[in-house]
């Protein structure tokens, strides 16, 4: 099981230039909106034709600009779950699912597959309903059933949860994860939500401005995003420019401090990232004086904004996030950060 995508396309103001190797399992494409995630999926599905490049799925060439191969979407055998689910509004759930079975010529097999998938996706009672009569979650199940029943080699999920209410999203994520694991096919999932990607995908590729960088195991990428954009996409709140001052030490001019690092610093280091959860007022290393600035409360967590004692005017405050029940009565006058939690960030070109 493998997918290899190497494509380029010029959209005038925007250039898509994607190089992606997917081995097996569920890979997430994480990026901000308008970064080219969906265009990548659409190119794999055959809805968008790249200017040049090559797309190979399990040894089968789907697109090759040099050999003038460009398979129609109908024969690529790639399932695409659209953000709005794209159920046909003039057809019932059953008819919609039957559209996914149009390649199956045997009537009995078709009927059996239809019944099985409706049972699996809990749609049997809704078979005569029209899409507009379904809830968001039911629409998602119907659209997934329609795709799964067609037996695609590769499943493309385009922001599968963004059309759902927040409270539905979490429970459906658990269901979909289980479903995809049981299904056992390759999946490419596009999302702007780091939580979704972290939860669902064993591997992740970060994408920004039409380019992919920093692909790898999800946990490793989140633990060490390596680039500034990677740090932002994985949810790092504190990023500041640095310069190297020692084998394991950097200077942060913006904050007026020096920090020890867990990893050796390479010469071309350009910034550090510190996750807002990792500050510790009782730390012994990398301790620096701070001044309380402001706070933002959420239902279960609080973000406390500090300024370093020597911080330059105009630079963003430092974010410290802690569970609400652990917010101290008196704000600490110093914060520390363990050296291994200082993320070293390098220019994107070198990755």
């Amino acid at each position, binding site marked *: 099981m493998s997918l290899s995508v190497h494509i380029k396309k010029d959209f005038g103001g925007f250039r898509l230039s994607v190089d992606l190797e997917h081995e097996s399992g569920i890979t997430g494409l994480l990026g901000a909106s308008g970064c080219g995630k969906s265009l990548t999926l659409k190119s794999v*599905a055959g809805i968008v034709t790249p200017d040049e490049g090559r797309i190979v799925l399990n040894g089968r060439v789907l697109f090759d600009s040099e050999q003038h191969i460009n398979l129609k979407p109908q024969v690529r055998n790639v399932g695409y779950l659209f953000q709005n689910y794209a159920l046909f509004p003039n057809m019932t759930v059953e008819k919609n699912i039957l559209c996914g079975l149009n390649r199956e010529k045997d009537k009995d097999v078709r009927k059996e597959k239809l019944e099985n998938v409706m049972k699996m996706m809990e749609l049997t009672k809704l078979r005569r309903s029209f899409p507009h009569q379904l809830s968001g979650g039911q629409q998602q199940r119907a659209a997934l059933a329609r795709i799964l029943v067609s037996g695609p080699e590769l499943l493309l999920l385009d922001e599968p949860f963004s059309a759902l209410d927040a409270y539905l999203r979490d429970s459906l994520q658990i269901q979909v994860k289980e479903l995809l694991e049981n299904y056992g096919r390759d999946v490419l999932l596009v999302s702007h939500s780091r939580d979704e990607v972290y939860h669902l995908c064993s591997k992740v590729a970060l994408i920004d401005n039409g380019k992919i960088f920093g692909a790898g195991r999800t946990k490793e990428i989140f633990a060490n995003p390596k680039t500034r954009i990677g740090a932002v996409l994985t949810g790092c709140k504190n990023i500041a420019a640095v310069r190297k001052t020692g084998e394991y030490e950097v200077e942060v001019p913006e904050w007026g401090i020096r920090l020890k690092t867990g990893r050796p610093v390479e010469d071309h280091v350009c910034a550090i990232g510190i996750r807002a959860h990792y500050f510790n007022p009782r730390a012994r290393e990398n301790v620096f004086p701070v001044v309380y600035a402001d706070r933002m409360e959420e239902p279960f967590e609080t973000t406390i904004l500090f300024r370093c004692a020597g911080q330059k005017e105009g630079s963003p405050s430092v974010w410290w996030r802690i569970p609400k029940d652990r917010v101290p009565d008196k704000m600490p006058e110093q914060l520390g950060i363990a050296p291994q939690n200082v993320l070293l960030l390098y220019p994107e070109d070198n990755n």
Partner: protein
Amino acid sequence: MDWYPLINSLRIAAISCALVFFTGIFAAYYVARLPRAVKGILDVFLTLPMVLPPTVCGYFLLLIFGLKRPLGMLLSQWGIQFVMTWYGGILTSAVVAFPLMYRTARGAFESFDATLAYAGQTLGLSNTYIFWNIRMPACRQGILAGTVLAFARALGEYGATSMLIGYIPGKTATISTTVYQLWRTNDEAGALFWVLVNMAISTVVLLIVNMLERRNGKAGAS
């Protein structure tokens, strides 16, 4: 009582409406997918018959199909003559009604959610199936409205028709040319009769459309 104008008007309107239904949808479908610059130019050309006075359309049709013009002469060799024949009325009605079908259908196609077509393609459905079973039903309202407008316009066509096929009782007379002819010859009662016939047809057409729309609404497909 001579019912010829009614029969003639109905057959002209029905045939030209059927012609316009397919050509209008075809043009709309392809024009909606063209690049913007080409679309703008083609759009002007295809919509022109709607904004020009019908007599100007009739003038152009005479320029093309007149008996002394190359195309008119060519066609008359095979016995086809659009001047002063009832089926010439099909031509004038179709030309004048075409933009109504084309524009309403194009509006419907342009508001169609393209992801539905893409979803169908990735599921392996043929483009023909997608067109007739997904795109057309989704655009049903616009296409139905366009068809009704085109039929009504074809039924009421006067200017271009009177120029190309004139008024020959029992041969080229339509309801609208008959109304004018009777009024001109001071037969007020006759004119009123045909006015009422025309109003009756239009009312029935609109009632049928309303009924169709209500039935579609009940089917739950919106």
